Each structure stands twice: as C-alpha cells, then as structure tokens.
C-alpha cells in the first residue's frame, strides 16, 4: 500500500515539474524574435503544398530553384539583420551588388587580371565601402538611412559611369571561361553534393534529362553560403561577446558606451558586413551568369530589409535574429518562385511582399511592447 501511494505521489510531482518546464519553454519560444517568420514559412509551405503540390514545385529541381532564390536573398538579408540589430540601416546593399560585379568583371576582362585577384579586389572594395559608410554614420551621427541612401546613388552612378567609360557598354560578359582552373572562383561557383543527385537519378527518384543525367545537378553555392552564414551569424549573436555588443549598440547606444562597449567599432564592422555580403551575392551571381550587369541588385536592399523585418528585427534596433532573417528570405524566395506554379498572376508577388512586411511590423511592434513593458 505505502509503496503504491509513494509512487503515485512521486508521479504527480514529476508531472507538475514537467508541466512547469513546458510552460517556461513555450514562453521562451514566444520570446524569440524569429517565431513569426518560422510560422510564416510553415504557412507558406502548407499553402503551396495544397495549391501546387502536384506541379513539380516540390520536385528536386523545383526545390533547388526556390532555395537558390531564397539563399541569394538570405545572404544579404542576414547581414542586413545583423546591422539592424546593431541599430542601423544599409540602403546601399543593392548598389554594392552592382558595383562589386563590375569590380570583378572589368579587371578580369579588360585588365587581364586573374579571376581570383579580381574577386579579392572586389572584396577589398567592399570593405572600403562598408568602412566608409560606417565611419560616416558613427562620426557625423547622421541617420544611416540618409548616409546610405546617398551611397546608394553614388555607387550605382559610379558603377554605370566607370563601366561605360572603360567598356563603352553597361554589361561585361565573358567571365565563364575564366572560372575553370581558378583557385578561388570555385568557392562561389561549384554545385555540391552532386553524387546525391546522380544517385537519386540512377534510382529514378528524380526527373532525368533525355541524356540520362538528372535535371537537378547539385546544391548551388548560394545555398551553402546561406546556410553557413546563417549558422555563423547566429553563433555570433548568441554565443560571443561581440554578439552581446551588437545587441547593446542597437538597444541603447549611450548606455552601451557608458559601460565600455566600443559602439563605434561594432557599427563600422556591421556596415563592412553588409557590403561584404553584397559582394558574396554579386560574386555568386556574376560567376553563375558569366557576366556582370551595372543594374544588378537594384532594389535588393529593400528586399533584404523586408526579409530582416519579417524575421523579427525591430526598425529601432537592439532586437532580432539572423535565423529569423533567413526564414524571412525563405518565405520571399518560396513565394516568388512558387507563384509561377499557381494560376495566380506573378504581378501579385509584390503585393504579397508588402502585405507580409506590414503584418510583420505590426506583429513585431506588439512583441516589443510586450517585452519592454513594466510589471
């Protein structure tokens, strides 16, 4: 008898404990900034699963297609999110993409540089542009919105003017032949895990071309970069001192300064981060297309910011997540490609993008109020 009652007692104790834990875990989850984007992504997949489940959108080829688009946006969205958490904007991301493309193409094609040197040159320019953006914002105290808006025009204009001056046109083709045997370009231009697709093809599990090779040949480099950046950025935010400084710099610049956080250096490094991310984006695209276009990346800065906002970043800084931005990018990429598989006119994509962002901002605002209100 006694043993029985004891066991019941301990069982109820255990249950209570378990329940407490569950509640706190749920609350923990609700407090995470990426929750909205995660939910949104799940809804988007359910939606397309229903309306486009049998159209080939979710074939290997289709999945890689929308993953590639999401990943490209995600690379810059993650960097934009980090900067937004640090309390600043970068509107020059799109122009930086165009500028970086030209920085690779002109030296490689017109000056005879090896491709790897051109790529390093482009990244060096990105660091310079980012540093310049950052130092201008930190030193003048002007809103980064204005400073980087100016940089948006300056970079785009310079890209056009320089390209036309040197080449007489606005596009620089002919890069594809240079990729082979280049010691650096493969990082930005190689499809990986090809064996998986070859194997799946041999098992007749995925669609094959008429010559017997699979339609989807491998994971595009953008997806690998995207995943690596998402993990790396999340690790920085959650696990490092620098991550704490990013939150602090964006949350309260003066407070952070008063306790010894080098706010200026943190912000400058984040501006360098967005410019470098834009250059990764540009390098992947330029090598994929084999040509650079002066107009490449137009309006990408706004899409990146939209993805970051959907991912839970506050426009006022100090709150957000890199994973959230990654989900935000996944939502946009999936919808922008998925819409082709439905009967909906693709013109509606921008409407969706805008509505999504509006909902996200309202949701984030509510969360912020909940987090900051006193007992």
């Amino acid at each position, binding site marked *: 008898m006694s043993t029985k009652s004891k066991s019941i007692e301990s069982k109820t104790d255990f249950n209570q404990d378990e329940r407490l834990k569950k509640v*706190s875990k749920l609350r*923990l989850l609700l*407090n995470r900034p990426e929750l909205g984007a995660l939910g949104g992504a799940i809804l988007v997949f359910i939606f397309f699963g229903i309306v486009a489940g049998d159209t080939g959108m979710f074939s290997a080829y289709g999945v890689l297609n929308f993953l590639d688009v999401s990943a490209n946006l995600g690379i810059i969205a993650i960097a934009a999110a980090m900067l937004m958490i640090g309390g600043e904007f970068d509107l020059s991301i799109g122009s930086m993409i165009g500028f970086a493309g030209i920085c690779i193409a002109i030296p490689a094609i017109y000056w005879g540089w090896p491709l790897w040197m051109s790529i390093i040159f482009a990244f060096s320019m990105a660091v310079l542009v980012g540093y310049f953006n950052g130092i201008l914002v930190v030193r003048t105290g002007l809103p980064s919105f204005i400073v980087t808006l100016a940089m948006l025009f300056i970079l785009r204009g310079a890209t056009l003017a320089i390209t036309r001056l040197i080449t007489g046109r606005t596009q620089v083709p002919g890069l594809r032949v240079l990729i082979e045997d280049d010691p650096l370009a493969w990082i930005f231009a190689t499809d990986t895990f090809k064996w998986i697709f070859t194997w799946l093809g041999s098992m007749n599990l995925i669609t094959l071309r008429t010559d017997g090779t699979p339609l989807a040949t491998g994971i595009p480099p953008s997806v690998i970069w995207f995943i690596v950046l998402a993990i790396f950025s999340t690790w920085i935010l*959650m*696990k*490092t*001192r620098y*991550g*704490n*400084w990013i*939150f*602090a710099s964006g*949350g*309260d610049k*003066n*407070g*952070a300064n*008063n*306790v*010894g*956080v080098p706010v200026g250096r943190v912000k400058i490094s984040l501006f360098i981060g967005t410019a470098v991310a834009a250059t990764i984006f540009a390098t992947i695209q330029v090598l994929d297309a084999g040509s650079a276009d002066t107009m490449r990346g137009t309006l990408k800065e706004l899409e990146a910011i939209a993805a970051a906002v959907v991912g839970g970043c*506050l426009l006022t800084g*100090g*709150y957000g997540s890199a994973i959230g931005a990654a989900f935000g990018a996944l939502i946009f990429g999936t919808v922008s490609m998925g819409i082709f598989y439905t009967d909906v006119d693709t013109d509606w994509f921008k409407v969706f993008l805008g509505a999504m962002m509006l909902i996200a901002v309202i949701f984030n605002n509510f969360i*912020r109020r909940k*987090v*900051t*209100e*006193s*007992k």
Partner: protein
Amino acid sequence: MSEYLVQFNNISKFFGKVIALKDVTMKLKKGEIMCLLGDNGAGKSTLIKTLAGVHKPDEGEIIVEGKKTIFDSPKDALDMGIATVYQDLALVSLMSITRNFFMGREPMKGPLIFKTFDIEKANKIAAERMGQIGIDVRDPSQAVGTMSGGERQCLAISRAIYFGAKVLVLDEPTSALGVHQASVVLKYIVKAAAQGLAVILITHNVHHAYPVGNSFTVLNRGKSLGTYPKKDITREKLLSMMAGGEELNKLEVELQEMNRSSAN
C-alpha cells in the same frame, strides 16, 4: 593611510567664464552615505561628471585611498573603483538581465580563437546577485524591460558593485520611482554601504536622502553650503537651505504684498 576612502578637495570647474563649481570639498569614509543635495542648476551634473572622470577639475585634488589621482577618462575613475550609476542606468530594456549585467564585460570561456560568451556562468552570477538584493529572478534571460523601475535601479547598482566599485556615485536613483519602489532602492543602498562601500547619493529629494544619509552636502549655484553630519542638521533646515530658503521667504513676502494691494 588616510582615514578617508576618497576625498575631493576644493574642486573647481570653469566653462569659459562660467563658474560651474567652486571649492567643493567632500570626504567619505568606508560605509558612509553622503547625500549631495541641490536644486536644478546647482552644479550637481557637473560635479557628477567630475567625479566620474568625464570632466577634469580645473582646481583641487582627488585623493583615493590616500593617493592623489587624476582621472583622464571615465575608465580611469572606474579602475580606481569609483563607479557612477547615471539616471539612464545604462541598461538596454530589450536585452536580458544577464546580458545587461555583463554588458561590455562578458565572462568568456574556451580556447583563444573560439572564445565564447559563457552565458551559463553569467546567468548563474546574475541570478545569484539579484537574489542577494531580494529580487527573485526566475529567469535571468527575461528582458530588463519587464522589470520595475526600482528593480532596474537595483540591477544597475548591483552590477557596479559586482565589478569592483568601492565608491558608488548614484545620480538621482529615486527620482523616477514611486514611494514603495524608492524605499526598496534606498534599503539596498544602505545595505551596500553596510558592506563597506562609500556612497555619494545625489538627489533633490530631502525626504529620500534624510533617512539614509550619514552626512549632507548642499550645493547651491556651484558652491558648497557646507557638509553637515546628520546629528547637526534637521530635515527642515536642509529643505530650506536647498530651496534657497531666503528666496522662498522673499517670495512669500512679495505674495503677501500682492494680496494686500489687490484687496485694496
């Protein structure tokens, strides 16, 4: 070795032709709470910034533990153990208690290149420290924004003490708080002093200062009106000194005259 933990002797500070501070002297022993009282514009902010190392005094000397020192920067003051808690508290309301507690001074673990923020250790210390003040933190990862004003003030003070403050300079710690919250903070300040810290409590609220202070310095128009141990001065006397008692008396006379003339 001097009997005083910290001495500010004849501190003066000029901004161009403006005399912001003139010959202000304050001496604190361990465990002492000195209240610095003054109305708006009395020079409190300038004095705080001088104590904190933001301004360099133009005249006078600062002696910490018997040694004459010059603060070139706020960091110098901090290194000497003089910690200033400003009104804005340097807390980020969107960040967790732990992340705020260790902001700028995060404990690290791991090998050289892969050093990471030791969040478990930080959580433990933060919860422990908040527990000591009597604030039960169920979850140190909850945002500071969810805490009350008094709790935030206590967190900022507790942080300063944890990072080695010997002298606490508190800028209006109770001004934004209700009666109950203010008393919680004041209690904590007394407790901190009892542990051997010297506290400079800057306030314009005599009712908050009088119960906790050991001595009182009244500042008026940049000059010290003197320092009085508690036994030598009453609350009413302090009030009238601070408000510029003469001025209020004059005002009363003037008002009476106005009444009389309007009655006529």
